[in-house]
């Protein structure tokens, strides 16, 4: 019997999906409108542009519905988009500029729809000057307006006008079945939410992705399947019932590598296996809480960390460490990490007891030495290669310097217990999310132990589902999470940096908009952000401004960057080959990234 009823296994790619709660919903534009990770936006939605987080330079940029890059006017108050021709919705209706205009206007008219708010804030008017041209007039100058339509993970997807026009309330319309603008369309789904099956469109050539292909994609069906808890996922992949896994613990990954070695592929050919996402797990300080407003305290805490243990404990050594406040992935390597090595090596920190040079560029070799006993020859000896696997460097653990810094900040030590300037013991509650991001929880317990051993009693607080809310609400002392995410495939840091402007910082107790969760406030930072707004997305100044920010962040240590968020995402090669990898990063590797579609159409049947 077939594993999937009526569908030949060799025509289907099975991807790990979530358990969808409202499985009957396919309205991407309504809040909670259908699971976002079950293929709906990954396989059926489309918009103007894509950036591949693992790509570099021009290779990272893809024109999807747009035929070219965005065209801004002089002062960035107007953006013109040219659309490709010959693209059709899956029900045979042609895609035109009217769909775009409808998308923007409908969402502005319906607060609560997914992109309603950003459109309302930015757009004064939108019009289709002809069938293939859309012109946006903006409320204020915005050189990054196009990013609203640029997919890294997702973006503002274009709505089918001819469908939604018929609908009374676009917010409560379930859009079932959805018409597709991309190469796959809905085949069937489980009303209990455990699986959705997408099928290659017969007219797959009439899509932005299909147009670029020379022959038909071999994957006929894409199955998003919720295969259960991490153990079950590993088992299912070893049983060849799950081709793509997203996120499992390092140990699960190692198990697959050990037991199913021949039938699997990973981002790196061997250890450390993982795909580094362009997100930057860091130790976040709440700057609105004493004593974390003090840069010396933050630096002291950073210098108390032995990053090697953190790497070993969280990722079993398979972490891609980051000393700079941007993830060491995609173009960031060439744009920032390589050029800034010298500056980092010479960076001096005044501890109040003399200056030190805290940077240790040999960290990747040290980690290699630590994992060698387990992985042996699969660990290369070339230091350049090691840097790409384990990171370029990090701060040396330096308790003496930390002591000096703390004393400089007015702290004193009583036995093995640090006292705050007011004489009370310095204790920390370190918040982690827990289950959802186990590696970070693990990192948290190690850092807590290191701080505790140095006289700062630290307990780990698992926030679980309240994590996001508590981070946003400023209801934490210290947390491990990410406040930095980047395009990966582009040096521009506005993706996160824009929201770091002091204009957006909230009073304690109020909810901070996403990204600047530490509520870091600095005039120099504001200046960088304002400068960045005025330069063009592709201008070389962007990288320059990025470096300014990174230097500032090293000096101030507003949060302690730890590593890229490494995801273990092994692929089963029993049925499909040609997966992306570090050597051939033609697409991101996570099944929830919308540019996964470029991987799916590129896969080849194994037999």
């Amino acid at each position, binding site marked *: 019997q077939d594993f999937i009823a009526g569908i030949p296994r060799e025509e289907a790619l099975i991807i790990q999906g979530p358990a969808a709660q409202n499985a009957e919903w396919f309205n991407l534009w309504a809040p909670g409108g259908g699971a976002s990770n079950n293929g709906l936006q990954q396989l059926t939605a489309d918009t103007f542009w894509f950036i591949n987080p693992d790509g570099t330079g021009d290779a990272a940029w893809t024109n999807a519905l747009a035929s070219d890059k965005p065209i801004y006017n002089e002062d960035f108050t107007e953006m013109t988009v040219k659309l490709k021709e010959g693209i059709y919705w899956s029900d045979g209706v042609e895609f035109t500029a009217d769909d775009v205009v409808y998308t923007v206007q409908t969402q502005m008219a319906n607060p609560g729809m997914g992109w309603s708010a950003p459109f309302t804030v930015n757009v004064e008017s939108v019009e289709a000057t002809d069938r293939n041209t859309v012109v946006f007039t903006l409320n204020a100058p915005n050189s990054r307006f196009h990013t609203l339509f640029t997919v890294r993970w997702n973006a503002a997807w274009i709505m089918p006008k001819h469908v939604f026009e018929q609908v009374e309330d676009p917010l409560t319309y379930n859009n079932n079945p959805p018409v597709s603008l991309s190469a796959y369309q809905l085949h069937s789904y489980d009303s209990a939410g455990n699986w959705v099956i997408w099928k290659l469109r017969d007219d797959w050539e009439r899509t932005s992705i299909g147009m670029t292909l020379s022959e038909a994609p071999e994957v006929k069906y894409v199955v998003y399947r919720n295969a259960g808890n*991490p*153990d079950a996922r*590993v*088992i299912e992949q070893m049983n060849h019932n799950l081709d793509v896994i997203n996120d*499992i*613990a390092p*140990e*699960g990954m*190692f*198990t697959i590598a050990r037991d199913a070695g021949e039938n699997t592929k990973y981002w790196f050919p061997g250890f450390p296996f993982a795909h580094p996402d362009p997100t930057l797990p860091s130790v976040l300080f709440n700057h609105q809480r004493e004593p974390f407003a003090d840069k010396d305290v933050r630096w002291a805490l950073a210098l108390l960390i032995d990053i090697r*243990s953190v790497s*070993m*404990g969280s990722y079993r050594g398979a972490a891609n460490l980051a000393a700079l406040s941007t993830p060491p992935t995609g173009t960031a390597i060439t744009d920032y990490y390589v050029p800034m090595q010298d500056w980092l090596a010479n960076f001096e920190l005044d501890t109040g007891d003399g200056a030190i040079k805290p940077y240790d560029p040999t960290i990747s070799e040290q980690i290699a030495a630590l994992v060698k006993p387990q992985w042996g020859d699969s660990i290369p000896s070339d230091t350049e290669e090691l840097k790409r696997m384990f990171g370029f460097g990090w701060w040396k653990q330096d308790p003496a310097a930390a002591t000096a810094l703390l004393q400089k900040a007015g702290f004193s030590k009583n036995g093995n217990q640090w006292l705050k300037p007011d004489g009370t013991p310095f204790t920390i*509650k370190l918040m982690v999310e*827990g*289950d959802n991001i*186990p590696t970070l*929880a*693990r990192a948290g*317990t*190690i850092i*807590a*132990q290191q701080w505790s051993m140095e006289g700062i009693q630290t*307990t*780990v*607080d*698992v*926030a*679980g*589902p*309240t994590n996001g809310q508590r981070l946003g609400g400023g209801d934490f002392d210290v947390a491990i999470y990410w406040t930095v995410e980047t395009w990966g495939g582009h040096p521009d840091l506005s993706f996160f940096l824009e929201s770091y402007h002091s204009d957006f910082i909230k009073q304690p107790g109020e909810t901070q908009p996403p990204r600047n969760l530490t509520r870091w406030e600095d005039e120099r930072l504001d200046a960088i952000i304002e400068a960045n707004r005025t330069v063009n997305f592709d201008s070389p100044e962007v990288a320059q401004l990025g470096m300014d920010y990174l230097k500032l962040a090293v000096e101030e240590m507003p949060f302690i960057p730890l590593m890229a968020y490494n995801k273990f995402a092994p692929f089963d090669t029993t049925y499909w080959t040609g997966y992306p990898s570090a050597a051939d990063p033609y697409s991101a590797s996570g099944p929830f990234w919308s540019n996964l579609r470029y991987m799916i159409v590129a896969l080849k049947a194994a037999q």
Partner: protein
Amino acid sequence: MFKILRDMLRYNIEFAIGFVLTLSIFLFALAHFWAPLPDTAIYLLPPDMPPSAQYWFGTTSRGQDVLWQMSSAIWNTMLFGLTVTVLSRLLAVAVGMLSGYLGGRWDQALMTLNDTMIALPNIPILLLVYFVMRDSMSWPVLAATAALLGWNYDARLIRSVTLSLRNREFTRHAVFAGMSVPQILVRQHLPYVMPVIFFTAMNNLIWAIGLEVTLSVLGFSDINRPTIGGMIYWANQHQAIIAGIWWWIAFPIIAVVLLFLGLFLLAISVNEYIDPRSRLSRMGA
């Protein structure tokens, strides 16, 4: 007291086995106070070592000695379980006996309360309480909450025992001897209720520990405190079963099973000792 213990050890093989099992696990758990490393310390030992002469029960993927982890975990879990059990026994006895003895409106009111508690689904309520309490959720609070949810079935049972005692002649006699309600309940009826308390305590303990494990597995627990649930949680986080680190889970579970076997044997033999029927024939009535 000591003589009873000696007699029971000597003359009841079940008690003897149960006693030895429970005592050894208790001592084992007690030993964590003398552990070479603090129970929260991680990555100080080589991880994933299988059981060996050096690490009898192996080490975890977090670089902890399973032996010492277990020792703390059993201690903490039993502390939690016993707190729940004792608190919920107190509630069950109070409500069950009062409602059975007083009858009438009191009975109706208490049994309505009891039925309400029976109807409340445990897991969602506990999870919600967990959310509400968040930071201030410590194990005693959790134990108190669990105790509030864990007395109702047993109160019914105790009520039915008291109900039958209420109509015994000695109860009416006690009333005319001027005894107050607490005196009657504690002095006259409690000895009959004792076996029920013992019997339900076992089940309640198992339930409480199951609850602890469930909450931990779902990610609602204090991860700084080693417990049986906590060990399973961390083992899970490291996919220990899949990765073949079976000793991380197997040994604690075996210890729990042994402990319960011990407690169970103790409970049945102590019950036999205090059961009014056997006690009466022992006394020779």
